[in-house]
């Protein structure tokens, strides 16, 4: 296995282009790659460590958006004041992300490219309407996150391309994150979701819900939110609409029915509380 640590994007493209794309693996935080190798996944011919690429670093705040470099670690997200002010759900997801040692290492770009249906930072990013900035030999392009991830572990990233950053439009709405694991820490989500919302006169004037671990990729519960916001449906009446947007499976963590039930239980409780009902049940 050849190892390189390019110092610039130009160097990266040069090194990545020098070998057949199938043999190249990109290494960022390594927190997902390394357990795979340890468990027998074949090593690549060429490992390109992108941690030294300056173009992928930093958090930039602009008037209407915030741009988070792909190499930003989960811990850096937790510590960033602009993100703390504007993107509560993302910070809450980062708080519940594995343990300190992993948070020091795992990157937001890695979370995007892994495209795990249960990835903790993904529901907030979906709910915020994040846009993924991609850089490649042919230049830059941007893709809405929803289009970027196409399935479990699948993205539209072409060979040689890298996620450079993720851009979050500044939001005037509040947001929150919920995660259910099978224990209190270091758990992979059995269900997670993020909500952005605004309440006016006891009803939602804005609502977006992204749910994880209930479908091959994170899903926006648009059928439900549309009913609640545009059609004035009650939470009780509308909750069954969640089933239109999710397709959970049985796995070793939990059965599909459990994911379905819990998502609806906690979502209904949370939405009621947001409307100030207090009595979430």
């Amino acid at each position, binding site marked *: 296995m050849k190892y390189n640590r390019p110092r610039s994007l130009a160097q990266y493209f040069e090194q990545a282009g020098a070998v057949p794309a199938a043999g190249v693996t990109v290494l960022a935080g390594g927190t997902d790659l390394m357990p795979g190798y340890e468990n027998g996944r074949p090593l690549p011919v060429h490992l390109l460590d992108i941690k030294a690429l300056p173009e992928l670093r930093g958090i930039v705040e602009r008037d209407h958006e915030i741009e988070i470099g792909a190499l930003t670690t989960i811990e850096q997200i937790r510590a960033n004041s602009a993100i703390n002010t504007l993107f509560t759900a993302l910070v809450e997801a980062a708080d519940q992300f594995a343990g300190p040692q992993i948070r020091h290492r795992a990157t937001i770009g890695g979370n995007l490219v892994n495209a795990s249906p249960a990835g903790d930072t993904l529901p907030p990013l979906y709910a915020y309407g994040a846009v993924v900035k991609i850089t490649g030999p042919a230049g830059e392009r941007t893709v809405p996150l929803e289009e970027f991830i196409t399935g479990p572990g699948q993205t539209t990233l072409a060979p040689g391309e890298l996620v450079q950053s993720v851009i979050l439009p500044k939001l005037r709405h509040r947001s929150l994150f919920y995660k259910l694991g099978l*224990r209190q820490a270091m758990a992979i989500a059995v269900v997670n979701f993020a909500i952005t919302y605004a309440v006016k006169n006891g009803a939602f004037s804005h609502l977006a819900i992204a749910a994880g671990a209930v479908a091959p990729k994170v899903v926006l519960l648009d059928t439900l939110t549309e009913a609640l916001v545009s059609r004035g449906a009650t939470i009780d009446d509308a909750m069954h609409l969640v089933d239109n947007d999710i397709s959970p499976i049985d796995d070793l963590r939990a059965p599909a029915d459990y994911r379905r039930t*819990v998502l609806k239980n906690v979502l209904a409780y949370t939405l009621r509380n947001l409307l100030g009902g207090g009595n979430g049940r």
Partner: protein
Amino acid sequence: MTSTTQYIGKPFKNVDAEDKLTGATKYITDMRFDNMAWAYPIFSTVPFGAVRQIDLKAARSVPGYIDVILAERIPGENQVGVIVEDQPLLAGKTVRFIGDVIGIAVAETAAAAHRIAKLVEITYTEYEPYFSIAESESATSQFIHETNIACSHRILKGDPAAAFRKSDLIVEAEFSTGSQEHFYLEPQGCVAFPEKDGQIVVMGSLQCPYYVQKAVARALGRPLDGVRVIQAPTGGAFGGKEDVPSELGARVALAASLINRPVKMIYKRSDDIQITSKRHAFSMRYKVGVMRDGTLQAAEITLQSNAGAYATLSSVVSYRSTMQSMGPYVVPNIRVNSTAYYTNLPPAGAFRGFGSPQVAFGHERMMDLIADRLDMDPVRLRLKNVLKVDAKTITGQQLSASVGAEETIRQACRISSWETNQATGSTDGRYRYGQGIAASIYGNCLGAAGWHMDGAGVNISIQRDGTVKVAFGLAEMGQGALTVVAQMTAEALGIDHRRVVVLLTDTNSVPDSGPSVASRNVVMTGNAIRDAASKLLPILKAAAAELLGCGADDVTIGSDLATDSKTGTEVGFAELADYLYRGNQPTEMRGWWHVPQLDFDPDTGQGEAYFTYSYATHVARVQVDTLTGQVQVRGVWAAHDAGTVINPAGLEGQVEGGVAQATGWALTENILVDRGQIITSNLSTYLLPTALDAPPVETVAVEDPDPRGPWGAKGVGEPAFIPAAPAIANAISNALGVEVYELPLTPPKVLQLLEEQEPTAGMP
């Protein structure tokens, strides 16, 4: 208990903590040996079958290949069964579980040995495997061994049938408890090296050095004298390093003797989980007859356990669960039948509690069910039936002393403010809160089934400079054995604890002291220390009398001094030690203690099952999220009668650790198996309690000294685990108002319980 002790009963710092805190402690995986090779097991990938062919071509091409050792090269006996001779060291023909070791790959590096093991191509003729107790029980041919029954035990006392007829109420229930992985943080590992004199030395992470010694001698066809076993610092064991290291030890010793080089083997975690022993999963049927006032009259209990592919320690686990199947209660008429079934799963073996936690779940759920049916307070029901001095256990054993069971119930209630708490819910109804209580009994040491090996020794040696070396036959595996041995030696000899150096266990230093199991270290080693001290003290007194010019009877020894009690003149211990040497006096003494002879009839299960018992009661409080089924244990209050407490800090450490492990067994640790393959094969799927899951614990010691224990002490290591899971289960039942019949109670299962209770529960 006595206020005159210098060390006993006082918090005592761990003697081996500093090296562990600086990284200086060398565990087996940290040790290096010149010219060392690495070994790795080659194991079956089918659950049940016959080996047809073994192809080594690909394996031999791995750089660093040294050897692949198969069964036919074992010079001695191909047998490693510790009680029943059913387990080959290397499976030659038949494989009985995924993980059954067929051969040993040997290479220059650990990675190469591992690679070779994976590249050995084995073809099998597969048989229809048995995974569940029911499948095993219903088999009519193609048994796993000669039969599918690994062992059985029984108790018959009084006339249960007549007593049931007289009972006002009969309550019946069926329970099941899951298996559990030890997940000692240090994986299994051993190294063996041939010495020039022909002796084979085995070092390893282990808790029973004499088991390993016997296993190695047997496999190599050598006398015990040809095998020396030294215990390396051991990173947790919990029973998982009781019999399993005999396999590793014999395999590395075999490899080392064949290639004449040191050979080390360390299991990779996922393989450790697949190959090595687990807690027995149990199915239990309880039927209990009771009078209206709560007096237990009769019980009929059927216990079935899943023994896995080999018997290993199943017969003694099954013995213990049978003898303790009704907990710390008086039941005058009882029948118990217990059977362990072979299946094509990894062997079940020893795990902290050793069959007790399973039956504790059974009898403590029963007590709550009965209390509920009688509309009686569950604490009152327990107090009404609890064992006391002069009462008889279900084996008909009259208890003569140190029966603190009742007091543990009272103290657990007191420190938890049991009376003033009740089941409640959060105002919005999402969370429900409840409390549960569970009491338990634990027979100390090996009991009648293991009396023939229930002796242990020490060797105490006073050095010329006044330091005192202690060799003992049991093992430190993290529980604090070295520390209590130092503490008890200092107390017994009346010396400053800093003089005492306790050596890690070495079969060359002390006679076969049996296994380091059954919470027996304090009792066995403590008594052996007192025995040795009783031989050394007269010598010390005589020497002191000469130095002080007084009569030996006037000399008192204590506080690191020998004192003439008449004049008050003193001589320090170091000077005394030197004087012994100058006078050519004996300075080294062996101590030995064995458990008193036990009178027991295995046919009826009547007699002295164990020589004494420890008791414990835990109260647990839980919060249950009715939307998700998530349970959080908010606290555990633990009262333990372990007789006189030797080291209070050590006792608390044992209890807190035991409660955390039991919390995992009760809630999150769920072994999932797919056709014999464990799919929860590492920490991301097998969920141990983290720092946020382990509950806070308050511990109180109920010190009811046992006259046969050293300074009145009994064991606590396993009792720490036993009542916690049933207390948690009872608390969940109390919080939700539903009955609980199985463990573990994972969130999906708890939510299911809620849905069964009210069809709309859990739905918005």
